[in-house]
């Protein structure tokens, strides 16, 4: 394993920073293209998310008169930076292990909560009633999915005996991936329900639902500030999917082949867990999504923690 990457390089260039951003945008482009094909449309070019970002960067950010300007402009920045840091915390098995100085799984969990919090604050700072509805929905949804996530992570950490992602990866490389371990299946299922909600796609795109609250918190955003939110969302896809790979299937050869395998896994997770899911159903109402998370993923994650503790 290469362990020589310095922290600034990891955050700004690889595996976080530019690399994660480019790959995240490519994943989004692929998602849009494949979804379009599944719906019988041609779809945008694969590079459309890049074009969108360039376009937004060249525009002006309008700040509504009633918005709290420092908060309104500060939140997208905080969100994007938090995801840049998080991207450097996710290991790429066989290629990159995060420096322990940067933080471990617990830090990653906190960073993962930042985008949702940032969107909530941005929504209320924008002064728009749709932003306010987005705020309350985002909060309800976050309360619903954060619990199962923490329990899933706790189950994995308990099994391995460490909160370090490097240890979790190393453990599975010697003992076999958790994907093939029936004891870990409840945790896996709970995670599979968590990540579409965290990535904010149908059926869980409730806080931003276009036909209901007109993109909610993002309604008033434009120009580079909106671009930062798009960056945050692209980076989050890489982080969340990368976390899934690290928790459940971190088996990969060393060197460039390992990187290719890792990226392939992310593409599969994106297409199966995001694209297929969002083209095959409609949106839930917030109370339905909340009830769903309290019923299934929470129960599964509690069960998983219990059986790991007993095993």
């Amino acid at each position, binding site marked *: 394993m290469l362990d020589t990457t310095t922290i600034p390089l990891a955050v700004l260039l690889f595996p976080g920073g530019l690399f994660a951003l480019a790959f995240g945008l490519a994943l989004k482009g692929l998602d849009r293209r494949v979804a379009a094909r599944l*719906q019988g*449309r041609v779809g945008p070019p694969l590079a459309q998310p890049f074009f969108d970002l360039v376009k937004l960067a060249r525009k002006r950010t309008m700040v509504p008169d009633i918005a709290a300007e420092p908060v309104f402009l500060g939140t997208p920045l905080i969100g994007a930076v938090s995801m840049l840091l998080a991207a450097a915390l996710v290991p790429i098995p066989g290629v990159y292990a995060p420096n322990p100085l940067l933080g471990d799984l617990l830090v990653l969990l906190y960073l993962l909560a930042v985008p949702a919090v940032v969107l909530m604050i941005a929504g209320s700072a924008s002064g728009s009633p749709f932003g306010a509805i987005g705020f309350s929905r985002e909060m309800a949804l976050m309360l619903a999915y954060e619990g199962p996530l923490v329990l899933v992570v706790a189950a994995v950490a308990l099994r391995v005996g460490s909160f370090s992602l490097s240890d979790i990866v190393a453990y599975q490389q010697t003992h076999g991936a958790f994907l093939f371990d029936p004891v870990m299946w409840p945790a896996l299922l709970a995670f599979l329900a968590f990540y579409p909600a965290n990535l904010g796609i149908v059926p869980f795109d409730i806080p931003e639902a276009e036909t209901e609250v007109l993109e909610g918190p993002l309604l008033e955003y434009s120009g580079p500030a909106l671009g930062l939110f798009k960056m945050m969302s692209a980076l989050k896809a890489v982080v969340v999917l990368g976390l899934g790979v690290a928790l459940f299937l971190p088996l990969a050869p060393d060197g460039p082949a390992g990187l290719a395998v890792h990226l392939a896994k992310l593409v599969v997770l994106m297409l199966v867990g995001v694209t297929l899911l*969002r083209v095959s159903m409609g949106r839930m109402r917030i109370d339905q999504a909340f009830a769903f998370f309290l019923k299934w993923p929470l129960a599964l994650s509690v069960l998983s923690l219990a059986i790991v503790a007993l095993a």
Partner: protein
Amino acid sequence: MSNFTIPVGPLHVALEEPMYFRIDVHGETVNNVTITAGHVHRGVEYLITKRNVFQNVVLTERICSLCSNSHPQAYSMAIEQIAGIRIPARAEYLRAIADEIKRVASHLFNVGVLAHLVGFESLFMHVMEVRERMQDVKESIFGNRMDIGANTIGGVRYDIDPERIGYLREQLAALVPEVDEIIEIYRTDSSILRRTRGIGVLSYDDAIDCGVVGPVARAAGIEYDVRVKAPYAAYDRLDVPVHVLKDGDVWSRAMIRLMEARTAIDLIHQCLDGLPDGPTVAMDERPAIPPGEAIAKCEAPRGELIYYVRMTDSPKPERVKWRVPSFLNWDALGIMLRQAKVSDIAIIVNSIDPCISCTER
């Protein structure tokens, strides 16, 4: 939970036309709805008195795009009544065919938009793709995809030869399994059911009080269809089943529309089977329209459409007034939206299939 006011419209991504609802919400629940109209007033009622009766066939067609066959049809029926014109039997069948083709396209459009509003984009795309077949039919038979120009005073402006009948039957045969599949999806898909069952309920009593018409009334258990109660065109010779459901929710209204779209296909087949020979217009020359007044009504896709026309000695009508189905159904929105969730507002509004350009003209 805080109280605030949100504007829905006049320009809103979820609404197809400009309408404005001021909604007072408490958290996610609607407390009070103020409906404001008047954003697309074009003065058509005034304009219609400035043109002669024949020019007005073209004008009435442009009142609304989705009911663009029902308006000129009801208008022509009223004028024919004043002039005492009896249209040929073939024209009566051709009017019914045009009516039903427009009905299929209109109902599928509304049901498709419902899928879009619940965030089920794939289903929306699929329904619109199926509807595209009806658009092709309209283009092939009438020459236009929306304003089909089928009606004229004294008959119809189009005729179908055996080749076009063959084409029409072929397209309808291909449409039947597709519509059946869509009905099955709306009946069973959990994404659709969980967002539409028990939402925007209009009880039988409320429906009677509001005087709602069309699919909105039939979904609330009122068995009323102009095609059966007061047959026009060829409908007295056709077997028109009236679909009725009891629940009065968004899902029932969507199902009524789907079943009517399916029935419309059968009705077109019946028309083609019974299509008599003969002329398509009653007279070769444009008749003089005597003074008088008349009321005519027909079943537009959204419900009962009533036309009142008064003629004097002038070739221009002195007054034309029409009452559109959306005007009645619109009022019932106040009841349907009571205590609704913010997420369901657009779904409920769409469920009455509001036609603002008809209503505000």
